[in-house]
């Protein structure tokens, strides 16, 4: 394998691996001996030192791994707290509406009304602190009861739950 092709293969392998990749494995992948492979890796490490590059190739725990350069840390931190500006999905809104009007209510009751499993919608609402546990229901399994939070009231500009709009009449059949 040509040095140029070997470089590309090494880059791809080290990039795709979750952990540092031992020299032995890298040499086997390109079919070179370890000494020559190590020289090539050293060249790749030097190339990453260029100021235009944001990542570097490092020898870590007996293997090779790409890491971001330390000076980029402040820019990465902004991504550690992902700002979520997106609204709620239709499924989450539906679930929230049911909880708001029927609280306290169990997951099973919600799923019966919606007709579909609602774990992910409920998790989303819990994560956003729009709903919370309100104790447990008596009875088999003592299922968790869910209800809306203070935050829910704030988000919708409600003084209290009694402030929820009355429901449009549903024709009885």
């Amino acid at each position, binding site marked *: 394998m040509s040095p140029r092709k070997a470089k590309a293969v090494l880059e791809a392998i080290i990039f*795709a691996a979750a952990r540092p990749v031992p020299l032995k494995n890298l040499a086997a992948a390109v079919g070179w001996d370890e000494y020559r492979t190590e020289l090539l890796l050293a060249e790749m490490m030097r190339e990453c030192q260029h100021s235009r590059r944001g990542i570097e190739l490092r020898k870590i725990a007996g293997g090779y791994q790409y890491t971001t350069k330390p000076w980029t840390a402040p820019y990465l931190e902004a991504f550690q707290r*992902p700002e979520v500006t997106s609204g709620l999905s239709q499924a989450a809104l539906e679930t929230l509406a049911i909880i708001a009007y029927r609280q306290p209510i169990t997951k099973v009751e919600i799923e019966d009304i919606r007709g579909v499993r609602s774990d992910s919608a409920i998790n989303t609402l819990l994560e956003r602190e729009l709903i919370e546990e309100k104790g447990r229901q008596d009875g088999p399994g003592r299922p968790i009861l869910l209800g809306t939070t203070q935050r829910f009231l704030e988000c919708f500009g409600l003084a209290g739950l009694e402030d929820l709009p009355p429901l449009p009449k549903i024709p009885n059949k």
Partner: protein
Amino acid sequence: MSYRVKLDVFDGPLELLLHLLEQDKLDIRDIEISRITQQYLDYLATMQEYDLEVTGDFLVMAARLLQIKVGALLPEAERESEPEEHEIIYSRDELIRRLLVYRQFREAAQKLAELALRRSQVYVRPVSLLGPKGPVVYTNPVGDATVQDLASIYANTLLNWQAREEVRQVKRRTIDLTAKIGEIALLVQKYSQLAFDELLGRQPTKTDIVYTLLAVLELVKQGIVRVQQSDVNEPIIISFEKEQEDYVAPEG
């Protein structure tokens, strides 16, 4: 151990029809209804032979094919008054259109499969280097939803719930086609002449109509009954054609 011939499994009637056409290297637009109908019915028979479930969708298509073949049997007026029943009334053009659209998406599915294959050739970084996330802070956790949205969504959800509950209460009735054929043969024989509507119950479902139609068509094919209609708005009259001894009603 019993020996089984490998039978292609088709997800639906359109797929099967397309397969039959492609097998004969025929263009969809040149479809010959009587030929394809025979091939289709033969295939269904083979499916049954090998204990493959012939679902309702396949039977409905059989009814459609026979109906196109025999010519529109149900009166025009009925089509307009009951749009829900429209589905079972099909013309040759409609069948061609559906086959063309279906084939279009079957080919699109093939392209998606190719994309997926190409995608499986590339690797991405398996883990984020960003480390464990701190608690996420949501600036506006509900987006632009208003409390009025919440109320109307809830009302709609209740409506959907109610509708589902009603559907749940309607028990699915199954009809045995062979029994239906026998039943109709006996009825027509008894009264010698009957209108198609009289064969249906008071509130026939789509399934009732399809099965009744299939049964009548089968009896026409066997030469047991004759079907007449003087005008598109007139009732369809089914009359007994054969002597009693020629038809042996199935048992049970």
